[in-house]
């Protein structure tokens, strides 16, 4: 009973934790910032609070309490690691992340949660103000701006990732790496594992058809 406001089907705690782990692994191995998953986070937090409350009420029947505590620690670690991973990417690619969020069409899922968006904007403003006050305002008039979108490196979408196929995919178009090669198509069988360029399968990660490992 962890549906906490989601409009989809109710997940069991086990399913919820698996969703969290999947989101965590995808985020860890993807070179760019993935869609935000506010429903999962909200439900996991609720779950953790629930478990903590149960623990407080339990008698010190040692073994069960220890096991549950351990479980809480593990889940909290995964959640923290997931959110930290996102923060690192937000800070690393801050102008691109903000730009992408702005240009998302209506109805398309957000890359940033509202809180992450606020954090990203503050980070950018903070850094811009700092650079301006320390260096840029002392420079000749035509050099007083730095185009952050050009100077800060973009995520490398051509980096290779390992993945496991969850849903069979057909006719995935693979673009050539060199001029001599030609593009070709491959089929992804369910359960198979591949090493492939992230750009090729990015939409499949978003849809949940593949899992990065």
């Amino acid at each position, binding site marked *: 009973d962890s549906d906490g406001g989601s409009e989809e089907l109710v997940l069991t705690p086990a399913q919820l934790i698996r969703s969290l782990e999947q989101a965590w692994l995808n985020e860890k191995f993807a070179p760019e910032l993935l869609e935000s998953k506010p429903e999962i986070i909200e439900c996991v*937090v609720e779950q953790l609070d629930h478990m903590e409350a149960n623990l407080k009420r339990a008698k010190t029947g040692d073994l069960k309490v220890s096991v549950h505590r351990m479980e809480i*620690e593990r889940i909290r670690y995964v959640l923290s690691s997931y959110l930290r991973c996102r*923060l690192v990417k937000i800070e690393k690619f801050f102008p691109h992340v903000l730009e992408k969020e702005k240009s998302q069409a209506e109805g398309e899922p957000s890359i940033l949660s509202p*809180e992450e968006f*606020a*954090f990203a904007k503050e980070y950018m403003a903070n*850094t811009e103000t700092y650079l301006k006050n*320390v260096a840029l305002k002392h*420079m*000749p008039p035509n050099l007083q701006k730095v185009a952050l979108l050009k100077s800060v490196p973009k995520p490398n979408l051509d980096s290779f990732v390992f993945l496991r196929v969850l849903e069979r995919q057909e006719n995935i178009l693979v673009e050539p790496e060199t001029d001599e090669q030609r593009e070709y198509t491959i089929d992804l069988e369910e359960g198979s594992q591949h090493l492939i360029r992230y750009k090729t399968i990015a939409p499949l990660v978003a849809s949940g058809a593949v899992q990065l490992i």
Partner: protein
Amino acid sequence: SEAKSGRTDLIFLIRFRHCCLLRNQRCIVAYLYDRLLRIRALRWEYGSILPNTIQFHMSAEEVEWFNRYKKSLATYMRSVGGEEGLDLTQDIKPPKSLYIEVRCLRDYGEFEIEDGTTVLLKKNSQHFLPRWKCEQLIRQGVLEHILS
């Protein structure tokens, strides 16, 4: 304005000078930005209060950047995870065991654990404490995790 006066022989000189200036700007910004990244890492490593030796190496504007960053981070962490927020600077490593053996590296004083009991952390004393309570102190160098 020199270009407008039609002295084409100066155009190359102007362009060259402009390229030099742009390069200098890039170098300066890269240097400053790299320092910011290191300062950012300090928040995650040391916590929100930096040791004096490090603060001594920071410019006033860098200290201000750091203060704004940690405030922004605190706001974000409070917004996640229920009433008290979620301290993302904890739980850096996957938990292996509930309790760990630690040795105190320097006098710290009283330290309260879960059920209200306090422990006196004196230099060289050893304790068996809940792992999640010790993380911060281990990173600050007050406690040392003893691996048997």
